């Protein structure tokens, strides 16, 4: 697929949200068989599958709106990294468990606000997806919250590692709330990400305070994911995710 596609705003928006969910699902899937306990293994896999379900709906819808004949599998498996529109937060490596939980807290709290807003979208498909997904991401947020509280307000070692995880993730926060081109083009359908930030901030700050962690003040910030500019890590992730489909097109089992 070429990098110079002209995608209608609604399709671009659905693909961007779908790519966020797809890439994070793939990242969380990497924890399977490596989590601290088998119970946590199952929890992370469940969360990953919730996100994969959201991605399927969003990519399928984006592809249908674009009308160029791409289905969800084509979009997931046949695009190169420059065609992915996810924020960089979801593509960074998992790091240790604290880094993953920091990222989960940031992203699931963002998704909670996002889907709560999209439930009122004038677009029936987006509103329908959001209505279902808002319950899923509320659980993801609770799961991350529980861990950030326990690690942050745990032992000296767990506190330091939780804080280090937060510090590592925070440069990628601002990008979540950057203006979306589609928001001005599709008022009433697409939510302006900046409007989600105050509620996000309130929730995350209250968790960090209770966890005795400080809100990091990063000296740089990521940008560009929504324009197809990614970290080096996305290419490696896609190589693993797309390898089978590209080697054996249409493979099923």
């Amino acid at each position, binding site marked *: 697929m070429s990098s110079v596609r002209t995608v209608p705003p609604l399709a671009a928006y659905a693909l961007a949200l779908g790519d966020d969910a797809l890439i994070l699902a793939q990242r969380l899937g990497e924890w399977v068989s490596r989590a601290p*306990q088998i119970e946590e293994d*199952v*929890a992370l896999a469940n969360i990953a599958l919730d996100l994969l379900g959201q991605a399927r709906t969003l990519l399928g819808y984006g592809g249908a709106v674009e009308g160029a004949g791409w289905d969800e599998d084509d979009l997931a498996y046949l695009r190169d990294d420059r065609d992915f529109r996810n924020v960089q937060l979801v593509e960074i490596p998992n790091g240790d468990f604290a880094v993953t939980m920091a990222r989960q807290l940031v992203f699931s709290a963002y998704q909670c606000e996002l889907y709560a807003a999209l439930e009122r979208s004038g677009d029936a498909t987006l509103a329908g997806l959001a209505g279902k997904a808002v319950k899923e991401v509320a659980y993801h947020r609770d799961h991350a919250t*529980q861990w950030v509280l*326990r690690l942050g307000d745990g032992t000296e070692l767990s506190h330091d590692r939780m804080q280090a995880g937060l510090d590592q993730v925070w440069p990628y926060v601002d990008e979540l709330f950057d203006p979306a081109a589609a928001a001005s083009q599709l008022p009433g359908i697409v939510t302006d990400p900046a409007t989600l930030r105050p509620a996000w901030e309130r929730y995350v700050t209250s968790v960090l305070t209770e966890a005795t962690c400080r809100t990091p003040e990063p000296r740089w910030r990521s940008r560009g994911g929504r324009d197809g500019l990614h970290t080096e890590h996305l290419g490696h992730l896609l190589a693993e995710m797309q390898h089978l489909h590209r080697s054996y097109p249409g493979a099923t089992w």
Partner: protein
Amino acid sequence: MSQPAEGSKRGWPLWEVFVRARRGLAHQHVGSLHAPDAAMALRNARDVYTRRGEGVSIWVVPSAAIVATSPDEKDPFFDPALDKAYRHPTFYDVPEGAKHL
């Protein structure tokens, strides 16, 4: 936050999980799992035992809190009941037409 339960040397303590499938049914024992404390045990139970829509309510109990009969006590505990057939309600004639028995 709930108090951490006492863990084994190898990790998190064990919890027994009870799930109620529907309103009106009793909670049934479905299995056990490891978790650092009660709140996390509930969440792990949700992920391990209700991910296919099996339940509407979950109980978790520290496995250490369960008092069980021991195999050594099996005979005095259970054998005396085996030959007392008169304890079963099979010696009564059920009146014709009685419903809901």
